[in-house]
């Protein structure tokens, strides 16, 4: 079943894993590498930051990541305006030689919720410039439809605030988004544990993106494996056609043939 042709396709590129993971907040590069490995992810997000020119001792993330194996997805984390985000994407493309970007334009520091007005502005510019834009957005079907109309390669509604671990707070809006857009829907942010990821996939989402849920666990590498299994479990369950929910019971053993 899993072996089959159930691929995630983004902007014409095929991926076997539906789990995307971040590279932030790990105790060490070694731990990060092992966690990514355990997660089975093929797409990994990175941030774009100034080189520390006074202290060159620091090691480079790219020394640890096999670019033949992983697709880098640079983000615009920390940007609060369309301009900052666009500028960051341009730098990311030059640094990474790929046009995939995870577009974030944040609304405030407490919630890290998107500023969808600025997000739409940035998305328009970046799509025109040929970027493959994966926007982090609210679970707002109207904004998602606009992002699709602009030409984004996917929409990435949040399940809950970044790093909150609250899971999919509003499965209803996610279902409506799935019913509204044709591009892949990837839940980005909010996943705290394996069942959260499974639930996202069971709703019919095309993928899940997470960082803190893995990196912040007591055992990040084991949690990465848990998320790997959970995303596959949820996807398979979605494809397998679950039983309907009923208030009352149905026996699983036959009635006939009871001894009397």
């Amino acid at each position, binding site marked *: 079943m899993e072996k089959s042709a159930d691929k995630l396709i983004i902007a014409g590129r095929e991926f076997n894993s539906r789990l995307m993971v971040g*590279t932030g907040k790990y105790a060490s590069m070694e731990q990060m590498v092992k966690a990514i490995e355990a997660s089975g992810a093929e797409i990994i997000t990175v941030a774009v*930051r100034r080189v520390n020119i006074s202290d060159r001792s620091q090691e480079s993330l790219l020394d640890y990541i096999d670019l033949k194996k992983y697709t880098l997805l640079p983000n615009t984390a920390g940007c609060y305006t369309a301009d900052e985000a666009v500028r960051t994407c341009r730098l990311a493309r030059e640094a990474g030689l790929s046009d995939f970007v995870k577009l974030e334009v944040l609304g405030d520091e407490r919630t890290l919720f998107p500023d969808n007005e600025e997000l739409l502005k940035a998305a328009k510019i970046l799509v025109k410039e040929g970027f493959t834009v994966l926007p982090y957005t609210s679970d707002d079907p109207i904004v998602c439809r606009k992002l699709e109309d602009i030409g984004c390669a996917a929409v990435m509604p949040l399940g809950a605030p970044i790093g909150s671990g609250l899971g999919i707070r509003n499965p209803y809006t996610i279902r409506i988004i799935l019913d509204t857009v044709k591009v892949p829907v990837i839940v980005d942010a909010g996943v705290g544990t394996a069942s959260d990821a499974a639930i996202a996939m069971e709703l019919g989402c095309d993928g899940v993106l997470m960082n803190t849920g893995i990196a912040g666990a007591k055992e990040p590498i084991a949690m990465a494996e848990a998320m790997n299994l959970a995303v596959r479990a949820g996807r398979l369950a979605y494809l397998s056609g679950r039983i309907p929910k009923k208030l009352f019971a149905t026996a699983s053993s036959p009635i006939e043939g009871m001894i009397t």
Partner: protein
Amino acid sequence: MKITVNGEEQDTDPKTVLGYLVEIGIDPRRVAVELNMDILEKGEYATTMLNEGDKVEIVQFVGGG
């Protein structure tokens, strides 16, 4: 001459962007460079001279979500 690199003022002799990167020990393939708010393509590093008062941003990928 003085230039501003990643927000800090630096003192350096006239040279190319590539020369400067090498001088401060940065692998050009691992970074992106913005000169006075314009992105430089990697091919331009060797041919672009730094001038007095230039504002340079040198960025790389770091861990993020």
